[in-house]
């Protein structure tokens, strides 16, 4: 029995369905991300779990109890908002104390818990500062301390990193993950940043237009996306239109460019025409005439740890990442071959479902 159970929850605003029959089971202590493009209903889902919005349908179960009708202030759920929503008239320590006061904790107990929470987010030295006297990253950590000090059953994070610069964001991601693991707190993170979702989560639920498209471990859904939407959302991919010759079990034999290839295939691919999806880092540049595809280098960009190539082929443009192991002996306008392992390609339906 999972700890948090979202059963068929839906939310419509007027006639518009923002969240549509959302099902998700989360284990105790698990870190799950809701990932999806802007407007796909992530925040709405989070607000229903928090109790700020009532689902139009469905049930929210936590630890076997039905929370659907329980008021937000009795759910014992910690939230970190995108804007942090700190109380500007209270110091960092007073912000953290707020939830403990609501719980009528004794003075001693309160002090001890505040100290521990501020210590955990490395802000003990800033306890008497007001939010306006703190940097964005520090404010965010106060917000986190305020949410976890009440020992919530579930921690909800709504794009907590989106206001931080790239470097700070990476640091905070690592820190957030280690705090979450230390406390063993069941966490749901909302984000539209696929790297953040992959770096932090035990599992990711990819959403689109109010529905869950795929749920799984980060590398599972990266390597084995359910459809083209998931595949493109979780990183770059090259799509090659192919003709499906035969499907047997989890293998399909496809035809493109006058050659046949046997590739892994998910259930549900039925059409004659399909996409063959290949991640840029799985493609190798070879000598002209020796690959599965022929092309010409259009641009080559250096990214530090890898090179990015844009390659013009008869079947459209291809992206290739190659490890920066040595100075490449290729240059723009060179004719090259493209090669990949048949097992690294995935066969996907042409339509998004």
């Amino acid at each position, binding site marked *: 029995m999972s700890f948090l159970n979202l059963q068929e929850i839906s939310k419509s605003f007027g006639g518009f369905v923002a969240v549509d029959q959302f099902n998700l089971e989360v284990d105790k202590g698990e870190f799950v991300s809701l990932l999806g493009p802007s407007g796909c209903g992530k925040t709405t889902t989070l607000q229903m779990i*928090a*109790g*700020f919005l009532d689902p139009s349908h469905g049930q929210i179960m936590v630890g076997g109890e039905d929370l659907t009708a329980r008021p*937000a*202030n*009795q*759910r*014992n*759920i*910690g*939230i970190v*908002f995108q*804007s942090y*929503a*700190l*109380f*500007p*008239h*209270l110091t960092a320590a007073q912000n953290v104390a*707020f*939830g403990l006061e*609501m*719980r009528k904790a004794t003075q001693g107990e309160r002090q001890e818990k505040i100290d521990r929470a501020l210590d955990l987010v490395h802000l003990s030295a800033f306890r008497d500062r*007001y939010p*306006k006297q703190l940097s964005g990253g520090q404010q965010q950590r106060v917000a986190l301390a*305020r*949410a976890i000090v*009440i020992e919530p059953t579930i921690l909800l994070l709504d794009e907590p990193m989106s206001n931080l610069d790239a470097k700070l964001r990476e640091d905070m991601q690592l820190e957030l993950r280690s705090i979450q693991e230390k406390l063993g707190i069941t966490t749901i993170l909302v984000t539209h940043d696929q790297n953040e979702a992959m770096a932090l989560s035990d599992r990711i639920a990819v959403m689109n237009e109010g529905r869950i498209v795929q749920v799984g471990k980060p590398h599972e859904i990266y390597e084995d996306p359910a459809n083209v939407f998931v595949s493109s959302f979780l990183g770059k991919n090259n799509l090659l239109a192919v003709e499906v010759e035969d499907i047997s079990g989890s293998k399909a034999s496809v035809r493109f460019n006058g050659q046949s290839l046997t590739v892994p295939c998910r259930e549900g691919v039925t059409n004659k025409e399909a996409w063959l999806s290949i991640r840029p880092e799985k493609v190798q540049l070879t000598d002209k005439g020796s690959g599965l595809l022929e092309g010409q280098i259009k641009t080559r960009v250096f990214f530090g740890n890898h090179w990015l190539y844009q390659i013009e082929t008869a079947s459209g443009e291809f992206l290739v990442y190659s490890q920066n192991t040595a100075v490449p002996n290729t240059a723009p306008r060179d004719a090259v071959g493209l090669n990949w392992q048949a097992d690294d390609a995935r066969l996907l339906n042409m339509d998004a479902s």
Partner: protein
Amino acid sequence: MSGVLQRKAGIPYWLSLPGVMLFGVMLFTPLIMTFMLSFYTFDFYEGIERAFNLGNYADVLSDSYFYEIFLRTFGYGLSTTVLAVLLGVPEAYILNRMHSRWRAIFLLAIIGPLLISVVVRTLGWMILLGNQGLLNQILIGSGLTSTPFTFIYTDFGVIVALTHVLIPFMVVSVWAVLQRLDPQTENAAVSLGASQFTVFFRVVVPQAIPGILSGSLIVFSLATSAFATPAMIGGRRLKVASTTIYDEFLNTLDWPLGAAIAMILLVAIMTVIMSYNRLVERRYAQVFQ
């Protein structure tokens, strides 16, 4: 180079000249003249004479009659301000949480009365609450009381009418501040276990302090210097500073004494307002930054 900069630096001062002149002519000149007038002497037979004499101030400050008037004036000011805070702040909060369509209607209802003359509004109260007024007719007609409930010519009546006249200033200035608050702070408090009541008093009100402060300053200064409402509802018996000044100028014709009362009223209001401002800003330094 530095010459150019200096010439440029002077431009703002030149640009503010028309405003300064307007204030100089319309505000400071009469103020200074009233100030000078307050030192002149007055005699029933001789009329007003130019002099420099503190007699008017001595008269006012040594007469318990005037103390009573000032006490009443500031009593009205304080009660009106307190009532305006108690009613206006929740009103502004509710207004801010309303659906935008309703908000427009209610905002009109709140601000609308400002478009109507104070005299007309006060007359309205008299019609409604006079001894022969609608409320008393209903009360007596329904047998709830046999004697009319007196509202006109009472302190209570003046305070109610002043509050009604001035509350829009409180609502609007608090609402302006509430609009700028992050609505998520309320959700954050709720998620931490706070009731709606706690959210209002511990999260909303402290953040609304700047609006409450400016609203109270406006309401207090307008209430203590109000003329029409206390004159009409307070009548001859419940004199306040401004009606006393009016009487000195137009009935007794003792302009210098009236001017002295006006100056004392001005200084007293300024003192109260400035100390209140300092006090609140220091106590709630954080929300003012």
